[in-house]
């Protein structure tokens, strides 16, 4: 039967398109989509589920290396001096029959530039000399590897639909705007070019197309708040490899919707977080398997400008009391390799540590294993004392701590409760406040909370640091923002001038932002990673308390030939691609011919 679970009622069994005797791949989609969406990929309500399955990127980046790509719409690319020349796959068509050319790429770059996208900060100009060639000119100081990363991962949208939004002088305005923005952001916004970009963006974001014209392996059939139905498109360049007649995404807007689909076998695949109970109940079913892949970092950011968290010893003491091992067990249970992953609090994910630091260096990092005695010693040396079972600060007031996290992630709420218990019994009166996610940033920036939860995910280790220690900007750091609503607030409030091991006294947010934008993989990057890792590890501006695991549950009832798993369900390359990239990883699995309907 088509699609599985939802279709058990007679009323719905009827309309099945002609060719699919095989079932559509049914995906229980974590976090899903909202009650309103737009088929306009420039809109923030664009359903991300359609990414890469309908609109292809130029290339897919494969972790852990920063320089590995699998070509998609681009067939190859090479550096010529200051230029990155991208050659496009020839003979491709869009789903409306028009040809795929360099104009599609050019228009996409121009239009995404109006919303501050497509990494225009990496290049000064883009041109399309021939129908299957696009040339990006690197901004002075930006290494070619950074430019490649910034450009190739973008999805391309059809000029036949969006070309009409490109105003005659947009290319020059764009160049002028970004040249100015590199020097002075607010002057750029107020310039004529900036206003022209805004006008284009306003029009673009209000456009609401009735149907989708993509060029990926699938074509959109229909979408409701409950499901997205995609059917295979034979015009896709690698269509012969794609095994699925179609895909049904089911909206798992909260995880508890997905669990019964897994247990009741009405879905084939899920990317939702699986609590220990669900994992163990899936373990008892022979058709279910779980792939476990490393993913982003969970960090708790201190309000470094507020007393007593401006004291390094206090931050270190708290790091010693955080029961990270128990917290990880509370989230992932003892099943699978999850329990084993307990990162060093150095701002890097475990696999990054291995890629950029030597074993000798890693050994020098303080693991901050649970040690209340060390925490006690640190607090006492900072002038704190115990009164009964509570710590009193040198100013005579009780030592309290407030932690703000996102309420929608119940796994995080749960494991933070473990931490609160530990901090409380250590004598720090801790309150946990779980609030809707969109509110975390204002609290963090304006300093309402003592500690706030922030996640980071990057392939570039310097960006991983810049995402927290940098200024608010293209890299999204939190330290002394200069742009937007929080300009002038302190945010993380670390520094701004601090003594960074190996670098000496530097302006932290400026330095890390510049390095993240200009340093390519190599010796210098390794050296800098070691410097910043030591800073985070020694001065603890934030605590990296967990390495999030992606748990992919897949069923062999209707579909077989899933990408292989390593020992203990440990992810192999394709699963890691999925974990880092999301949909592009799925695309790679399909291009490898994986996930085949059972005969």
């Amino acid at each position, binding site marked *: 039967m088509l699609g599985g679970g939802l279709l058990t009622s007679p009323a719905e069994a009827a309309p099945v398109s002609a060719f699919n005797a095989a079932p559509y791949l049914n995906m229980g989609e974590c976090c899903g989509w909202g009650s309103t969406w737009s088929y306009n990929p420039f809109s923030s309500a664009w359903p991300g589920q359609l990414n890469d399955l309908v609109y292809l990127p130029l290339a897919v980046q494969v972790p852990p290396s920063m320089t590995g790509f699998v070509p998609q719409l681009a067939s190859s690319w090479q550096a010529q001096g200051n230029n990155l020349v991208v050659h496009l796959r020839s003979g491709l068509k869009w789903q409306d029959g028009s040809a795929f050319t360099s104009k599609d790429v050019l228009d996409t770059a121009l239009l995404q530039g109006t919303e501050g996208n497509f990494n225009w900060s990496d290049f000064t100009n883009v041109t399309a000399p021939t129908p299957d060639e696009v040339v990006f000119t690197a901004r002075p100081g930006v290494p070619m590897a950074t430019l490649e990363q910034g450009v190739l991962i973008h999805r391309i949208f059809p000029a036949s639909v969006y070309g009409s939004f490109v105003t005659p002088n947009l290319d020059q305005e764009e160049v002028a705007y970004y040249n100015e923005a590199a020097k002075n952001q607010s002057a750029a916004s107020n310039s004529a070019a900036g206003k022209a970009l805004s006008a284009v963006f306003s029009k673009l974001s209000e456009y609401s197309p009735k149907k989708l014209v993509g060029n990926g392996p699938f074509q959109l059939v229909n979408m409701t708040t409950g499901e997205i139905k995609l059917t295979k498109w034979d015009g896709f360049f690698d269509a012969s490899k794609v095994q699925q007649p179609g895909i049904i995404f089911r909206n798992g807007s909260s995880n508890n919707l997905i669990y019964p689909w897994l247990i009741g076998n009405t879905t084939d695949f899920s990317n939702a977080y699986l*609590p220990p109970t*669900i994992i163990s109940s899936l373990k008892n079913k022979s058709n279910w398997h779980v792939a476990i892949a490393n993913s982003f970092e969970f960090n708790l950011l201190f309000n470094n400008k507020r007393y007593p968290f401006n004291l390094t010893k206090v931050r270190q003491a708290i790091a010693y009391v955080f*029961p990270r091992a128990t917290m990880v067990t509370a989230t992932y249970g003892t099943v699978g390799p999850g329990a084993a992953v307990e990162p060093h609090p150095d701002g890097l994910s475990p696999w990054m540590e291995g890629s950029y630091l030597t074993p000798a260096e890693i050994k020098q990092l303080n693991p901050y294993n649970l040690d209340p005695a060390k925490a006690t010693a640190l607090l006492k040396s900072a002038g704190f004392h115990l009164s009964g079972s509570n710590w009193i600060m040198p100013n005579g007031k009780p030592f309290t701590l407030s932690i703000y996290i996102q309420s929608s992630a*119940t796994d995080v709420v*749960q494991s933070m409760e473990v931490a609160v218990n530990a901090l*409380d019994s250590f004598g720090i009166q801790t309150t946990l*406040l*779980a*609030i809707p996610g969109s509110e975390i940033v204002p609290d963090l920036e304006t300093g309402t909370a003592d500690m706030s939860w922030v996640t980071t995910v990057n392939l570039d280790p310097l960006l991983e640091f810049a995402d927290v220690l940098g200024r608010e900007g293209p890299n999204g750091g939190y330290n002394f923002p200069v742009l937007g609503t929080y300009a002038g607030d302190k945010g993380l409030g670390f520094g701004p001038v601090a003594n960074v091991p190996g670098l000496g006294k530097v302006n932290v947010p400026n330095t890390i932002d510049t390095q993240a934008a200009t340093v390519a993989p190599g010796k210098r990057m390794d050296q800098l990673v070691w410097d910043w890792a030591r800073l985070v590890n020694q001065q603890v501006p934030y605590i990296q308390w967990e390495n999030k695991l992606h748990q992919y549950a897949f069923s062999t009832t209707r579909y077989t030939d899933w990408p292989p798993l390593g020992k203990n369900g440990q992810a192999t390359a394709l699963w890691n691609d999925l974990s880092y990239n999301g949909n592009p990883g799925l695309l790679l699995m399909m291009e490898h011919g994986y996930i085949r309907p059972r005969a």
Partner: protein
Amino acid sequence: MRDLVSRLGAFWKDLWRLSKNDKGAMVGGAVVALYCVVAVIGPYVAHLSRVTNPADAYLPPSLAHPLGTGPLGQDILSELVVGTRPIMEVGILAALMTVSVGVVIGLVSGYLGGFADSVLMRVTDVFLTIPGLALVIVIASLVRTSSPVVLAAILSVTAWAGLARAVRSQALSLRESDFVEAARQQGLPLRNMVGRQLLPNVGPYVAIHFLLDVTGAIYAEVGLFVLGVVPISGTNWGIMIYLAMGQGALFTTKSMLYLFSPMVAIVILQVAFVFFTRVLDALFNPRLRVQ
């Protein structure tokens, strides 16, 4: 004053007599009383363990853990007991606010009449029309509070209007009655008139309203937590349900108790309130008393 005492005495006598005839109401009253006791002494008798041990997650019921354990190995019964106070506290506070605002506005409006009455009643009309739940959810999500007083105030933001209307119409008819007229001719101040003369007469109606307001506030409060629009901090039944749902407790047999315990606790309390109301209803409504 003596009048009030004798009234109260008669009230208790009637209450007892009627309760004896209505077992449901009696049980309801007893359950409500029990919940109140738990809310008061709960945090002193039950202690939430500060030591978490995920290895003890979802243990079946035993002597040590009569309702089993939760996902962090914590005792569900203790959590339930500790979580009683925030719920009862907010429910009762909200009902108190609703009733006091409603009664004051209703009595003053009905007693003063004229222009003041028109103004107060137009305001009341607005609050009566605005869908309470929608406004409560919108405000609660914006204000972001974990203070019981603020939460109670939000919950009672529109609830008072119905009561104000009803009290006013009772006050209007009382105003015309002989004893209020007599008091007025003696030149008693407004405060006196309202407090001594009018209040005791609308008392019964207000008492019923109060109990139903408690159930309404608890319904909305737990709902806010279950929806996840208010901050999650500390322990109460709504938070327990929210976390249990999020952690998939509904879907495995051993974890179900973690979700169902707070659900059952709420249902029992709500049902008990309603049954308890029935005896008051019978007490104050002689027509119903004959049935």
